[in-house]
């Protein structure tokens, strides 16, 4: 079964460079989780079940500010709403896989995997696609979950006086800046930032939700103006 091996190997080969980002990012998730009071087990299980770094940081930020559970969950889902675009874009390939593969493949569908799969997948070779996806997904899963566990153990030993909780806003800076690609997305970001500051005192951290809506609305207005 040389074909099997080549598909899995190609996936793993393409994923390896991305692991240099996934391992430390997983570790930061672990450090941040114990920083807001999670146990190492909670931090690791969260990474296994959610498998979505940016949204996990958002959850830590809100839990540290005593936000109600419903607001935390809603924010996680808003941060992850981009996954629906990946889902729509990759659906034609996933439908070629047997149902028993569909759910595990959906579970691991995240930025890195999507970026690799959508460039490599070939509609006429579903078997190769399936093996390539597995080859890329397994190292990513081990790196991210393993990174979280290591970070959680490490984080529990770091004194709070280091101010390491500042990595949470910095991680959002790192994730936000590359999403600003044109005038409309810049305006979406500026509007959201201004409204978020103005609404910082609102109860239940509702300022965040209002800011997100204002930002998307601002982006769409610029969009319509340009069209």
């Amino acid at each position, binding site marked *: 079964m040389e074909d099997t091996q080549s598909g899995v190997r190609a996936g793993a080969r393409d994923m390896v460079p991305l692991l240099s980002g996934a391992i*430390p990012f997983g570790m*930061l998730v672990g450090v941040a989780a114990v920083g807001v*009071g*999670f*146990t190492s087990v*909670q931090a690791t299980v*969260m990474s296994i*079940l959610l498998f979505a770094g940016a949204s996990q940081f958002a959850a830590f*930020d809100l*839990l540290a500010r005593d936000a109600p*559970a419903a607001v*935390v*969950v809603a924010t*996680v*889902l808003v*941060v*992850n*709403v*981009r*996954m*629906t*675009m990946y*889902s*729509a874009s990759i*659906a*034609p390939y*996933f439908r070629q896989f047997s149902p028993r593969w*569909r759910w595990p493949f*959906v*579970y691991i*569908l995240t930025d890195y995997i999507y970026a690799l799969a959508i460039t490599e997948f070939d509609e006429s070779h579903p078997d190769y696609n399936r093996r390539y996806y597995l080859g890329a997904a397994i190292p990513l899963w081990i790196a991210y979950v393993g990174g979280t566990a290591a970070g959680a153990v490490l984080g529990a030993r*770091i004194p709070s006086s280091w*101010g390491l*909780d*500042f*990595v949470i*806003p*910095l*991680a*959002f*800076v790192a*994730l*936000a800046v590359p999403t600003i690609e044109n005038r*409309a*997305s*810049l305006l*979406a970001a500026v509007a*959201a*930032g201004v*409204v*978020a500051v103005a609404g910082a005192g609102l109860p239940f951290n509702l*300022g*965040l939700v209002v800011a*997100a809506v*204002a*930002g*998307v609305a*601002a*982006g*769409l207005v610029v969009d319509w103006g340009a069209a």
Partner: protein
Amino acid sequence: MAETAVSPTLVWLVIVAAAVGTLALRASFVVLFRRVETVPPRVERALSYVPPAVLTALVVPAVVVVDGSIAVSPGNERLLAAAVAALVAWRTERVLPTLGVGMAVFWGLRFLA
């Protein structure tokens, strides 16, 4: 790091609910709406503004609001460190250099203060 422990029940509730919801988002077009071939273009445009809006809304108050009031001054080391980090993120588009430089500036300013 926050000293207040978060209630374990709340943590598990948030983890499970967020995980189920996120899985549903990933599954949406693959499993749940199998008849819909693609995201309507208008919805896709709106969705593309969600990441810049939400991520910016998370970061700006965290660096601008200090003890309940707006602090846009050189004395706010978080704001300065975040501004430098944003510059690094813009040039490199990479997470780790952004975090590394941001934390270095933050620690440097606290050391000087």
